């Protein structure tokens, strides 16, 4: 089972996690920039965080045979702090980097006017840099949050096929399934989504444009729940090919739209999607 975790915050994880992930079949990850638990109070601390996402963390991952890419953005929560908002001016520099395969996580936390502005502005940056967008959906007031998210996405003019709407559940999946957006599901030990519930969703909605991630971070979470979901799929009668599509080919196809996914020389991941070629996208 080859696994691509399309959303995991490795900065908050230990080398034990990398070892266990590699042993479980995780060959590649995307680490979205997000909130670190402790609110940040200046732009410089974001610089150091973004630099580690394109410097130290890929090196650390590489020591365990895991290929690391990142998404970069001002997250919705901190978009509300005027001290952090100038981070938006830094982003173009990072959006040119090889390891940055999308703008994200963007979207809503509390659906404030400041979040509206940061979300729309960063969708425009995604279009300008020819990058896909990873969109976080709020934990509270979720259904209305997803509706408003889809409205902003439509207004931005970004191709829906280049948008991944994440943290969906049984209620919100219906809203996104009718669009051409990709659908992300974060499998958590207790909240959000579990492997058996995920299998039911795949039965109902199929495997097309469906992505499964662990969203593991500094909170209670488990980087091996991608693997657990693959095993639950097999037990429920899905084929190896179905599992490969959800856990490998779909994330490769989504982030491959950046033209920057580099999965060359990855052990156990030979049959990669054609879109991962590094030679796409110009100035």
């Amino acid at each position: 089972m080859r696994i691509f975790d399309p959303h995991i915050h490795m900065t908050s994880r230990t080398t034990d996690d990398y070892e266990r992930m590699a042993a479980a079949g995780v060959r590649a990850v995307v680490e979205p920039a997000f909130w670190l638990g402790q609110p940040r109070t200046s732009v410089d601390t974001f610089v150091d965080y973004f630099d580690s996402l394109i410097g130290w963390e890929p090196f650390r991952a590489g020591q365990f045979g895991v290929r690391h890419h990142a998404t970069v953005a001002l997250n919705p929560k901190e978009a509300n702090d005027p001290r952090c908002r100038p981070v938006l001016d830094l982003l173009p520099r990072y959006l040119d980097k090889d390891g940055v395969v999308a703008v994200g996580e963007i979207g809503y936390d509390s659906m404030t006017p400041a979040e509206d502005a940061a979300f729309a502005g960063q969708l425009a940056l995604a279009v300008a840099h020819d990058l896909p967008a990873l969109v976080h959906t709020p934990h509270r007031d979720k259904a209305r949050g997803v509706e408003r998210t889809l409205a902003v996405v439509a207004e931005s003019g970004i191709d829906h096929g280049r948008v991944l709407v994440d943290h969906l559940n049984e209620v919100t999946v219906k809203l996104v399934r009718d669009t051409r957006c990709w659908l992300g599901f974060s499998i958590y030990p207790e909240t959000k989504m579990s492997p058996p519930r995920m299998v039911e969703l795949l039965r109902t909605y199929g495997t097309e444009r469906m992505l499964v991630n662990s969203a593991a971070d500094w909170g209670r979470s488990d980087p091996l729940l991608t693997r657990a979901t693959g095993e639950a799929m097999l037990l429920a009668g899905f084929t190896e090919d179905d599992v490969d599509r959800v856990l490998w080919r779909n994330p490769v196809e989504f982030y491959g739209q950046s033209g920057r996914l580099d999965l060359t020389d990855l052990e156990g991941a030979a049959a990669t999607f054609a879109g991962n070629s590094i030679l796409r996208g110009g100035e």
Partner: protein
Amino acid sequence: MTPDQLRAALRGVPDPQWLDAALRRVATDPAAIPRLFALAARRCGRGPLPDPPGWTVDEAARTLLLTGLPADHAATAEALYRHGDAAEKRAVLRALPLLPIGAECVPLLHDAIRTNDTRLVAAALGPYARHLEQPAWRHAVLKCVFTGVPLAVVDDLDGRADGELAAMLAALAAERHAAGRAMPADATALLDRLGDGSHPTTAREA
């Protein structure tokens, strides 16, 4: 190593026109270099060059962009390093000995040697490290041994290795021996060439 040699080695990249155009651009519009520098690996590739050995395509292409600037090489190298991802930082370090600069960029070597990224530590010990003061150089060599970086990356190793380095290596060898762990073969060989460190030489003391 000269820019002409790197240019010749890059004739076979998938998109040589892109590189030619980028080089013409930085010669007349130096402000364009940050974006071109970031893009170079995607447009030219990242694989190893058959010749010169030890260079990758992206390092060579980025080095050419830096050498192609009309002026301000040191300041631009520093900005590209500070704003670069790990591969861009590595390329800046590889480029330093080919730039018309003095010792102004030594702080970049200090930064690279402080990291735990072995690729950066290795790239900091090329020919430009002749500007690095001897104590920092010794510690960088010791760090290579400590982290498993082959000593072949160290420029002018035998010319510069001194008794003090031999003493440091001998102490590490003693620690390793006590812990039942092996020293890398290239470090043991260097120690043999230097003697046991009990007779510090001062030929290259800085």
